[in-house]
């Protein structure tokens, strides 16, 4: 007998579906609204019950087994009873170094074991994108705003937070739940060289007129003058490389989508930012949301897209709210929707919230997630530019990549290409965290060395670093004698590393490298989608073998064998990179030999 929904569950789902603009045709809502509907249920009820899921399935005409498969894929969509307030306490790399274990100890002592069903509970979490203010947590609440809290130094702040969460309802809290913004020390210093970050801190992210007064929407006007082909040409000439991690030439993708014969074309902005150590897109979205809206509009214009999706990490509620506001403002001012700026071009943006799954940042997993399926990557080819979202030609770009387009259009591709190095043009955002004096987000011209960046960040705290992790969990460790590495795509590649998403995490003398590397292995195991054998089982075997290796057993050979198979035979980049950090840690002698420091 199918379980019936409670009236609250029914109402939550129906209210969400009813709030949507009336669909053109009657019948069930399109499947791409499934994930938003599941979010609506969890936002209102706290978890997904059999009855609640049945109601969603009835409305969508989706089989319950399939919808359960979708919901159970996401960490933020619990399919069992869950407390109305959940503290997702980050115990990932940067937070571990900043005392996350003690935060967790307090939570456990006060709230009991993880995953309870009483008023407030906690769960360990992978990086929540606030590594510059570690230790941090993401707070998920039923019928109240979600938020990140940071600087949870062990002791007072955690306890105050708990007292607050337990003692009050709704949003009336003594500590404002929204944390501080991403730290951008260069802005505090009044640096004038910033390009991507130049508006941040100078304007109100809620005000379109502020943005326009600062030169906003001049780039779109210029784009309309250039025409679609002209814009694509400038982007190609800029030699801009994608900033999401794969460093693919943006111009090649734009040209491919612009000229793809199949219609419609889709634009997807990848704002899922979940690589441990990364918080750059968060800063751009929270502090300069109109810039992203404008950049997406230009991308849609140049490549012939009328519909676009902005997939924001589920743990980024502030970014989501500010973008929602910005999109609504732009619609009101004729900058989105029908006939944008009277240029005869229709374009709009739909926001999608991620559900707590790192793998959904992989572009094809992202498409499946938007389409209402499990976030499992697809085999490539076909590539997104050929058959992407809904099987149509799709341009997918990272937030930072798109923001660069504003300057490219304004100053011209060749001028942009004049900044930086021959192969890495423009500037790059770096997320610096760990053992440095001034952690935060930095923007530097390509060509600056690792040592120079660390100097900018006030130097390594506590003397010489043991190692630096470049590129996040999917990256590699480099030794402290390689501070001369130029932070360019070609420079890091030559050094056997990669820039990835711009993570620079510093490990000081006191860092427990065994613990860090095990955490990275656990991360991949936890975030593997589970689809392919090399990664689903390989990430588990890797973690087990690492444990033995660290315990003094001779498992380096086996780890190498596991790593090679994951790198060679996995479907997607998660499996391909899941062994890199551990293998580099072993080859640098950072872990093992029973070293339990």
């Amino acid at each position, binding site marked *: *007998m199918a379980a019936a929904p409670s009236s609250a569950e029914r109402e939550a789902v129906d209210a969400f579906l009813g709030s949507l603009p009336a669909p053109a045709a009657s019948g069930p809502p399109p499947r791409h609204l499934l994930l938003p509907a599941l979010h609506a249920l969890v936002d209102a009820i706290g978890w997904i019950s*059999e009855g609640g*899921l049945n109601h969603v399935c009835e409305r969508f005409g989706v*089989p*319950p*087994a*399939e*919808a*359960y*498969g979708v919901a*159970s*894929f996401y960490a933020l969509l619990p*399919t069992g009873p869950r407390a109305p307030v959940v503290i997702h306490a980050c115990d990932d790399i940067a937070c571990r170094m900043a005392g996350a274990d003690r935060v967790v100890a307090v939570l456990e002592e006060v709230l009991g074991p993880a995953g309870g069903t009483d008023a407030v509970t906690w769960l360990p979490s992978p990086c929540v994108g606030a590594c510059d203010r570690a230790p941090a947590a993401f707070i998920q609440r039923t019928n109240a705003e979600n938020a990140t809290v940071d600087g949870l130094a062990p002791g007072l702040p955690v306890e105050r937070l708990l007292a607050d969460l337990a003692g009050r309802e709704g949003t009336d809290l003594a500590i404002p739940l929204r944390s501080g913004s991403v730290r951008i020390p260069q802005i505090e210093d009044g640096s004038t060289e910033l390009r991507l970050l130049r508006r941040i801190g100078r304007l109100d992210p809620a005000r379109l007129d502020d943005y326009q007064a600062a030169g906003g929407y001049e780039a779109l006007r210029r784009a309309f003058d250039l025409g679609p082909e002209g814009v694509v040409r400038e982007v190609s000439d800029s030699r801009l490389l994608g900033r999401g991690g794969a460093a693919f030439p943006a111009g090649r993708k734009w040209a491919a989508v612009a000229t793809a014969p199949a219609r419609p074309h889709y634009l997807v902005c990848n704002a899922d930012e979940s690589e441990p150590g990364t918080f750059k897109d968060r800063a751009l979205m929270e502090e300069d949301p109109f810039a992203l809206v404008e950049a997406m509009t230009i991308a849609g214009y140049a490549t012939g897209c009328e519909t676009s999706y902005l997939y924001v990490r589920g743990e980024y509620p502030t970014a989501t709210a500010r973008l929602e506001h910005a999109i609504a403002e732009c619609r009101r001012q004729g900058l989105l929707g029908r006939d944008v700026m009277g240029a005869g071009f229709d374009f709009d943006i739909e926001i999608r919230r991620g559900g707590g*799954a790192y793998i959904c940042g992989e572009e094809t997993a992202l498409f499946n997630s938007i389409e209402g399926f*499990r976030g499992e990557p697809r*085999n490539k080819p076909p590539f997104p530019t050929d058959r992407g979202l809904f099987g149509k030609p799709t341009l997918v770009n990272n937030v930072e990549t798109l923001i660069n387009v504003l300057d490219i259009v304004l100053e011209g591709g060749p001028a942009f290409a004049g900044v930086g190095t021959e192969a890495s043009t423009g500037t790059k955002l770096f997320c610096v965290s760990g053992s440095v004096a001034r952690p935060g987000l930095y923007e530097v011209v390509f060509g600056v060395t690792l040592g120079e960046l660390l100097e900018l960040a006030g130097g390594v705290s506590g003397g010489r670093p043991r190692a630096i992790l470049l590129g996040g969990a999917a990256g590699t460790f480099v030794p402290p004698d390689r501070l001369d590495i130029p932070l360019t795509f070609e420079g890091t590649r030559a050094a056997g590393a990669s820039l990835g998403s711009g993570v620079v995490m510093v490990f000081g003398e006191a860092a427990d490298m065994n613990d860090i590397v095990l955490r990275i292995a656990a991360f991949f*195991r*936890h*975030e*593997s*989608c*589970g*689809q*392919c*054998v*090399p990664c*689903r*089982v*390989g*990430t*588990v*075997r890797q973690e*087990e*073998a690492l444990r033995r290796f660290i315990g003094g057993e001779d498992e380096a050979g*086996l780890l190498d*064998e*596991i790593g*090679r*198979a994951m*790198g*060679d*035979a*996995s*479907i997607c980049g998660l499996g*391909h990179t899941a062994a890199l950090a551990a293998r580099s840690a072993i080859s640098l002698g950072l872990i093992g030999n029973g070293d339990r420091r």
Partner: protein
Amino acid sequence: MSVARGSTVRSVTIAVDGHDVTVPEGSTILAACREAGIPTPTLCFLETLTPVNTCRVCVVELEGSRALVPACSRRAEAGMVVSTDSERVRHSRKMVLEFLGSSVDLSLADEEIRQWMHEYRADPARYGSRAETVAQPPKVQDELYIRDYEKCILCYKCVQACGVEAQNTFAIAVAGRGFDARISTEFDVTLPDSACVYCGNCIGVCPTGALVFKTEFDMRREGTWDESRQSVTRTICSYCGVGCNLDLHVQDNRIVKVTSPLDHDVTSGHLCIKGRFGWRHVQAGLDEPEAEEG
């Protein structure tokens, strides 16, 4: 997947292990390997289903590609240069087999899986006795068939057979993530409580014995299952007019399971509850003392 026959079909030539192989345009590298007589292990691939390319045991080396590629789904393109027996290929195939062998109970898996284990020198034991596995009790929820998921390699075939590719019932799907990913009904409700219509098509495609007839499951437990004493008789199902082929597996004058040939042009191996399990009623009539249970 099937390539239209006729004079208009173009062909492509690729090099496999140094030999030119010509296949119709649209064929996979796997088809080319088979054309060239090169044995290629496959687990999640089945001629009658769209490739999901998740097991990765069929990977080959493709010149110009950084990672290995799945032979079962990658289309042959003119000029491709493929190696099927390089050290990298052998290594990945070995590791896939070891990963499965060390985490899943393969004791009832198709014989060829064990042959590949041998061929690629897979040694699942080297991960130690504490290697994590998917061990769990079998789901015995009705009298028709058993789901014994500690034998599941997550090849997705049953999900495909239950879904758009054959049955259109969608009683089961993949749930969870990572090593916790599993085949499940919604909220793991029992099969009788799910949408399952007991067509048994999932049993028909399962390569590892994770899905088995209750008869076989019981007989194996009792130690009476003996394939050497079984004969297979082909008949045409008489329940309706479609004309599905049935293979009746008979041991000691009792039907012990029913399969359907994959290459049958009507069914592609798929049946309905009557063809798959209707014999139980016939059987109940034959076996006087054993009354039919619920």
